[in-house]
């Protein structure tokens, strides 16, 4: 029995559309029943909620639920529309997938859809006194001028419930008590890797609760996308998770190419794969550097950056950019690889293999480091799946979630590589996953670098690209987890809605779970090993 048949068994009125991705539309009344059945299915439990995408269709506000099974890796998309535009509400699914807690907040913030039963319905990215919901199609862009007053944050949250007469009402949940010692970590803090702010209540040095406050770098990229042409949208992907610039852009290019029915050449596939892996090494080296620096060891920070500069050199020769590369374009890559590219990559890998032992000697084996990392900030496999903590964080807990392995794209189906898995789920495992992945990436590159076939590096495309109507999506494994592109086209030259699955948002959400009961110093170490990049979260 396929997933769709299962859904239709529970909810006969479910409709299936197949323009682009297969999407099952269920009425909002039966969403809860369908969600529960899918989540608790025996053969194919849809236990991983990839993302919830809020939408403003002409028929009303609604959401798309992207589900995946951690057992069979099967995927399904649910669509549901809220009844009333002005008083829109949907049932919350956070009882089955904890990651919904934060994703529903995002949709509330952008679209004003209230989720019944979600314990925390505050704004997430925008100020609490923000007027209107920016991603609605009728939002007035000038309605919120710059407000220089300091923002006061409430110590409680709202939870909505449905009264018997069908109206929605809220009651307040206490977050921080009067007697809690609440320390603000961030938004401008040396080790939050950007402008994350964590309101942390402490009991001595022990953390009793963390409330992440996001949005300090929310740039409204998704709204901007709706008025940009497809080639223009590409430029902004580099600025999401700038340490996975290639991979992000790869995902969007793949998505658009798939919608256009464009097949890029083998040469491009090779180049993209190599670049993705170089980017991964780059990001993981930076991860090592930052983690070590956050833990107070300044010297190893410089080791990581020393090697990272070599990658940046390689990048810059070919792409012209060190951090923001603008390399992938629709139908290929911006320019052919530089003549010295292959030789330099090989030299780099040789060099990296010779120095990586120093990294381990100075940090990994160090008794201070191991005792600070081992057994700290444990996320179990079930927690990781429920929280949607993909990437190294999930793999450290034993959840095999590598998109490259389970939904291969580019050349990942053809190369030989190992999916690095640990089972401890603690900070040390998260650290080791990344360190091992550096070596795996080297291994992948070595298989490809000498065999790049000749071919077109860039297919000619029309100056104005129009995509057919429908929903399209693509996902890649970036340096820190699954990055997804969810695109809805209405046949125009601009996307109707272009949503990115943030890799970091679930990770930040997992911080509270992982940190409780640990020390402040552990907060820094756990945050470091979670390895999130804030601009990617806030978008």
């Amino acid at each position: 029995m396929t997933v769709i048949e299962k859904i239709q068994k529970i909810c006969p009125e479910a409709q299936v559309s197949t323009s682009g991705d297969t999407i099952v539309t269920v009425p909002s009344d039966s969403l809860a029943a369908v969600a529960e059945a899918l989540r608790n299915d025996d053969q194919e439990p849809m236990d991983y909620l990839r993302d919830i995408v809020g939408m403003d269709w002409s028929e009303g506000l609604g959401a798309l639920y992207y589900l995946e099974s951690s057992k069979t890796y099967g995927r399904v998309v649910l669509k549901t529309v809220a009844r009333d535009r002005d008083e829109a509400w949907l049932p919350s699914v956070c009882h089955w997938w904890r990651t919904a807690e934060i994703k529903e907040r995002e949709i509330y913030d952008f679209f004003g859809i209230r989720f019944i039963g979600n314990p925390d319905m505050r704004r997430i990215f925008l100020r609490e006194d923000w007027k209107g919901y920016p991603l609605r199609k009728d939002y007035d862009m000038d309605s919120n001028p710059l407000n220089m007053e300091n923002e006061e944050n409430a110590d409680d949250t709202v939870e909505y419930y449905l009264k018997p007469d069908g109206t929605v009402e809220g009651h307040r949940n206490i977050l921080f008590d009067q007697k809690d010692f609440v320390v603000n970590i961030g938004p401008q803090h040396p080790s939050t890797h950007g402008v994350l702010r964590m309101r942390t209540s402490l009991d001595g040095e022990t953390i009793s609760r963390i409330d992440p406050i996001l949005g300090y770098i929310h740039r409204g990229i998704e709204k901007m996308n709706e008025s940009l042409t497809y080639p223009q949208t590409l430029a902004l992907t580099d600025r999401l998770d700038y340490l996975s610039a290639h991979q992000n852009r790869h995902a969007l290019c793949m998505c658009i190419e798939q919608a256009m029915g464009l097949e890029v050449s083998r040469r491009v596939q090779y180049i993209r794969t190599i670049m993705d892996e170089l980017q991964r090494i780059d990001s993981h080296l930076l991860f090592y550097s930052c983690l070590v620096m956050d833990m107070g060891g300044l010297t190893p920070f410089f080791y990581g950056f020393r090697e990272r500069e070599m990658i940046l050199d390689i990048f810059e020769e070919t792409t012209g950019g060190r951090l923001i590369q603008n390399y992938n374009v629709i139908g290929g890559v911006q320019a052919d690889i530089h003549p010295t590219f292959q030789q330099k990559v090989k030299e780099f890998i040789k060099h990296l293999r010779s120095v990586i032992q120093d990294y381990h000697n100075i940090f990994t084996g160090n008794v201070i480091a191991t005792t600070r990392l081992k057994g700290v900030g444990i996320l179990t496999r079930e927690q990781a799946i429920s929280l949607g903590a993909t990437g190294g964080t999930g793999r450290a807990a034993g959840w095999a979630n590598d998109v490259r392995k389970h939904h291969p794209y580019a050349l990942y189906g053809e190369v030989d590589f190992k999916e690095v898995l640990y089972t401890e789920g603690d900070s040390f495992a998260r650290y080791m996953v990344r360190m091992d992945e550096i070596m795996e990436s080297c291994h992948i590159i070595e298989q490809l670098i000498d065999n790049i076939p000749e071919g077109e590096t860039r297919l000619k495309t029309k100056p104005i690209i129009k995509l057919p109507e429908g929903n399209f999506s693509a996902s890649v494994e970036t340096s820190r987890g699954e990055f997804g592109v969810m695109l809805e086209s209405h046949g125009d030259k601009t996307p109707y809605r272009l949503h990115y699955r943030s890799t970091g948002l679930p990770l930040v959400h997992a911080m509270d779970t992982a940190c409780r009961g640990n020390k402040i110093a552990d907060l820094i170490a756990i945050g470091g090993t979670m390895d999130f990049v804030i601009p990617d979260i806030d978008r």
Partner: protein
Amino acid sequence: MEVKKKTAIRSMQYDEFKNNDYLEQMVRDLNRDGAGIILGSVDDLINWGRSNSLWSLTFGTSCCAIEFMALGAARYDMARFGFEVTRNSPRQADMIMVLGTITHKMAPVLRRLYDQMAEPKYVVAVGGCTISGGPFRKSYHVVNGIDQIVPVDVYIPGCPPRPEAFYYGMMQLQRKIKVQKFLGGVNRQEKKPKDMDSND
């Protein structure tokens, strides 16, 4: 010609710098009142100290901050200029390098940090986002240029700028400091409140 001597930077020619007209204008304005020779040489000494000891408050919000880290790393080594003492507390910093997009939510924080800094203080706007909103200038949540919030001393364009471009901008700032008069008007460029809020 006095400007040329004053704003000399090691290994760089005067003409290799852009926007020199601004410095010349500044010196003309400052010299209008005239200053004693003794006062002048004390000024020069203090300015030498100040320009060579720019401790920056790290205010990285996005991409440019990573390039700033690269700047501090071994390859580019900020320490050569004595910039490596980055302070995390605004009280101890001399300049604030704004690295990355400033959003509406962040703007009051930036202003507050700027107010918390001890005089004399400088602002360097790095990257397109801080100068004009850059890639995101059409967004509903991005400040189009931090000069709306704080007075900016040097603009370093780029998205993000190369590490060398950072140095070029920092040297520009050093040159600006060198022609200022510490004993007359560098402090209190803006009126400021009497007591500061605590930094928690």
